[in-house]
């Protein structure tokens, strides 16, 4: 599989409330229990070939005692409710990821750091190995740009774990399209590839950068469109211009 969408991050002030609301809105189920440091995610699988939405938010309010730029960004983009705050692309090998790191003039966040606190962990004790690029203190998400991931262990990919049963549940059949702000030229330049819209099934709405909507197919059901504002609407990306 060439470069593809892996997952989409939805920043939330209260991941329990947001997951409950999204389930009621769409019929898409979710699973719980994954976390990293002061943040947890509820995972909404979107179907084959293996995509998901991670509903992400602080679950440790004591973390606010030591603020930094990234925490403040999360607080600012969730002050008025849920916002899509990350488009996460995927590749199928570490070699491909290294090529993107080189293109970004950056390095790879390695998947085998021995400190479990650096990884997402699950309630079943599983520690998720995950590599990504670009690295750096300031996430490219804050500029409305996607980063790229490689998951060495596809068996335990978040998209493939069982969800809690819920009333009126629908079975997702995969992402149909994603609506992003900005232009295809902007994204092509960032990724260093031609025609990313066609490759990644992305439509561009010309608004501020980031994800604005995700359309998911559903078995024996109309397509489901999940529409939330991009984080850049709450906090302009110009705030993080170098």
């Amino acid at each position, binding site marked *: 599989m060439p470069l593809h969408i892996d997952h989409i991050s939805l920043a939330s002030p209260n991941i329990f409330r947001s997951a*409950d609301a999204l389930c009621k809105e769409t019929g898409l189920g979710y699973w719980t229990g994954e976390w990293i440091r002061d943040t947890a995610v509820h995972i909404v699988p979107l179907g084959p070939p293996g995509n998901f939405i991670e509903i992400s938010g602080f679950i440790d309010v*004591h973390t606010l005692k030591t603020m930094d730029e990234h925490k403040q960004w999360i607080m600012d983009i969730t002050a008025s409710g849920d916002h899509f705050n990350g488009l996460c692309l995927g590749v199928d090998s570490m070699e491909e990821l290294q090529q993107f790191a080189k293109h970004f003039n950056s390095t790879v966040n390695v998947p085998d750091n021995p400190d479990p606190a650096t990884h997402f962990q699950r309630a079943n004790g599983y520690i998720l190995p995950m590599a990504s690029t670009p690295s750096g203190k300031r996430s490219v998400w804050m500029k409305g740009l996607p980063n790229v991931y490689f998951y060495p262990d596809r068996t335990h990919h978040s998209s493939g774990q069982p969800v809690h049963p819920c009333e009126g549940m629908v079975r997702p059949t995969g992402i149909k399209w994603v609506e992003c702000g900005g232009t295809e030229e902007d994204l092509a330049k960032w990724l260093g590839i031609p025609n990313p819209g066609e490759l990644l099934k992305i439509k561009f709405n010309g608004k501020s950068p980031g994800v604005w909507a995700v359309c998911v197919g559903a078995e024996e059901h109309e397509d489901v469109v999940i529409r939330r504002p991009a984080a850049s609407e709450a906090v302009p990306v110009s705030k993080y211009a170098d």
Partner: protein
Amino acid sequence: MAISINHFSLGARNIYESADRLNKETGFGFWTGEWVQTTACHMFPLGKDVFIEVEGTIDAHAYLAMPKPNYTYDALDVDNEYNGDHWTGLMLGVESLEELEAVAKRLGGDVSPDDSKVNPYSHFRRPDGYTMGYQSAPRFTGPRPEKWPRGLPSFYYYPDVPGRSSNQPVIARPHLVTATGVKWIEFGGTEALLSEWMGVPKASDVIPVKFNGKEVGLWAVCVGRDGMDDVVIRRPTAAASIKDPSIYKDVPRPRS
């Protein structure tokens, strides 16, 4: 009136980290996903319809909007060897609404209403849509009587025992240990105080409780383990980390 231990609340800064650590300490499994408004719990069934709820605030914006000082936050903010974990509640159970109403009347409060069907978001909920329908007492709608310090147990009535948090399946993980029930608990204060609160001649004849004379509240829970030694889960009680209780003006109420 049959009074029993229903559950324990273990306040945590980060319920995910705390539950993971409690699993490693005891071998007990837990399940996830229960929440009410700005609070969520990870649940550890202990056997015989009793459970620990590892409980914390999971909404940072709601926390910022809460009145300060905040008793529970301030207790959990005090560092200890358990990343700030403190016991924040001992919850007793009765077996009928009539018994719960009698407890409330005796202590000068009332019973929280069961409005779970019409107001589900004020109740603990689960991802599968299940809404908890328990009631608790005493609820003090005015100032809490000075006679009764914080840390004394609330009383609960759960009409749906199969749906109780103690009776849901835990998430499988390596080296899980089966809990076989609470052997004893350690409580602060005196037996006379707890006995009067419970309305019984001697509390330790009703529930397996020992007293350490420290601040009122739960200090330790001893749980049996299948094929292993008992395990004692020891954390400071919240009151032990509060320097000046008089600055907390809010009226503590059991959740409805």
